[in-house]
């Protein structure tokens, strides 16, 4: 290549016609040279891998050097692919219609949820042992209507920004909730005072760089304590198409997909946050939806438009929780006994295994 370029620069100072000619020549020369090169290369390769030779010159769009041309070709490629896909779909649909009733049933897409590894502790609703266990656990007083929930919401020390607003909005969602400033107090000291004042829940929201990132939910007087990771918090202001502010009516609670024994305990923990008799006049509903071990919280107001249609309007806030640990007894991170701890890498080595 160097050799062919050198004469061009020499000649290209005044004689344009010549220059063009030489260029043409050069190109042809180059082409020949390239062809030769390729041939030789092929020859070498052929010798090396004789039985597996596959050489339709593989053309890939990314090899085109001109950007505009590359883009054009790429768009064409994409269009072709799309056309093929649509054709295939149409063909399948026609076949289906032709077969009529005898058509094979539609395939259900494989998701990691419906491929879930069976958990031994999945609760059977008529298991007497579990029933007894749940009837006598720490939430028994609430479910036997002996106590009414009273929730204390506090934060980590010196809350800033969104955490404060998040606390305030949580307090409007949960009836009978009181927000207090932490004032640098230790949780272990707060707990006896809460018990003395008949609180049934202590909720601590931890923050990192002004963003809420942790939630400690401690059932009083004798546990259990759950520690959650909080993510994707959206406050009321940030929710599109939100309704008016919630009213003070007791909301209904929906708990979805808490199927294992651990899930049941977590579900009961959430259920006991809210008073037992919802005010249906308020038409408000709080949802804890568990999917792939993430718990999604949403707060809606619904309205029956007619017998079949229901309209919902989100009131906010919305957030996602992930269980980190469940501890027996009240908050004691050092000497408490853990019922369940999330062990990363050990537990999530199988993506189809879920704990809740």
């Amino acid at each position, binding site marked *: 290549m160097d050799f062919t370029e050198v004469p061009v620069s020499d000649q290209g100072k005044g004689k344009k016609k010549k220059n063009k000619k030489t260029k043409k020549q050069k190109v042809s020369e180059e082409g020949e040279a390239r062809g030769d090169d390729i041939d030789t290369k092929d020859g070498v390769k052929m010798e090396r891998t004789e039985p597996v030779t596959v050489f339709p010159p593989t053309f890939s769009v990314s090899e085109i050097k001109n950007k505009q041309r590359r883009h054009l070709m790429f768009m064409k490629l994409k269009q072709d692919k799309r056309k093929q896909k649509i054709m295939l779909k149409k063909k399948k649909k026609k076949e289906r219609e032709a077969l009529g009733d005898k058509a094979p049933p539609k395939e259900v897409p494989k998701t990691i949820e419906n491929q879930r590894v069976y958990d031994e502790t999945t609760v059977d609703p008529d298991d007497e042992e579990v029933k007894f266990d749940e009837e*006598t656990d720490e939430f028994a007083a609430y479910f036997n209507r002996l106590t009414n929930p009273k929730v204390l919401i506090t934060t980590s020390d010196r809350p800033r920004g969104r955490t404060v607003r998040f606390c305030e909005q949580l307090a409007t969602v949960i009836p009978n909730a009181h927000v207090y400033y932490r004032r640098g107090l230790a949780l272990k000291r707060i707990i006896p005072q809460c018990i003395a004042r008949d609180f049934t829940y202590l909720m601590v929201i931890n923050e990192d760089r002004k963003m809420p990132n942790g939630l400690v939910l401690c059932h009083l007087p004798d546990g259990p304590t759950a520690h959650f990771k909080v993510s994707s918090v959206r406050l009321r202001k940030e929710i599109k198409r939100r309704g008016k502010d919630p009213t003070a009516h007791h909301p209904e609670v929906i708990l979805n997909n808490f199927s294992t024994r651990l899930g049941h305990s977590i579900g009961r923990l959430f259920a006991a946050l809210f008073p037992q008799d919802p005010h249906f006049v308020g038409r408000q509903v709080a949802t804890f939806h568990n999917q792939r071990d993430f718990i999604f919280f949403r707060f809606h107001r619904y309205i029956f438009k007619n017998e079949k249609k229901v309209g919902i309007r989100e009131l906010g806030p919305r957030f996602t929780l992930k269980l980190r640990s469940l501890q*027996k007894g009240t908050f004691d991170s050092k*000497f408490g006994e853990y019922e369940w701890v999330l062990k990363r890498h050990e537990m999530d080595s199988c993506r189809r295994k879920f704990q809740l």
Partner: protein
Amino acid sequence: PAAVMSVMDAWLGAETGLLKGVSVSRKQAVNFSSSSCLDRAQEVRALSWAGPGETELLVGSADGLVRTFSAEKGTFTSSRRCGEPHEGCFSGLHALGSALVTCTEKGAVRVWKEHSDVPVTEVRAGEHVHRMRQSPVAPHRVATGGKETPVKIWDLENPDKPMFTAKNLRDTWLDLRQPHWVRDMAFIPGTDRLVSCTGYHQVHVYDPSSPQRRPVLEAVFGEYPLTALSLPVDGHTVAVANTQGQMALLDLRKGLVCGVLKGASGSVRALQCHMTLPLIASCGLDRHLRIHSLQDRKLQHKV
């Protein structure tokens, strides 16, 4: 929950007062009490073998009842009252010939003869006794220990004075007293040494035959309180478990971790090694019984 192992099968006591027999080969747990008469007050606190050749099981429940369960017949044969509920739950229960040794959390070690309601001997082992264990070689020798109560070895035939009382650790370099919290202990068979694990994640080995009353070896495992301990057959390792469900084998000669047993996801309440085979069973708050092999440290069974 508490666990005792027999030949490849395990017996478990639950917090709800159930006694469960687990068949490992069939992967099933069978309840041996009627589920209609469940009571949280009858929470199983201690389990122990009694009678010749592991035929009877002693079940100590939280309200002070000791029930005898016949493993052959599969029924409870008798029950007797050993102590009042207000004296605390059982922290240890062992058979001594035909008699019974019980220990409550308030620290009363008592020997009960058959068919009598009055204890023959009574020993005060201090407040907050967390565990009492019996020596496998000399059954009349028991060890106790708990929160702020050092390890003591008692000879029940001579109950006036403990045979050995451990001394607390040396003060720190700031002259601060080290806290003391024994959670479990075991006699090392073949020697008269004793190994204990503490709530401050240490494992201590005491040697009553030497003049030193402080531990002769200290090992540290993890960051969370150790709850249970068990000695495998080979004699120079000890298996410990903590409140986060981490289990490990520690070498008793150098105090190093030999291997970790994975799988448990919650606090381990009881560990038990098999008498002859290299197997270890663990159970705890995560509602699973796990049996690990000690040789390759793999999880063998999970029920």
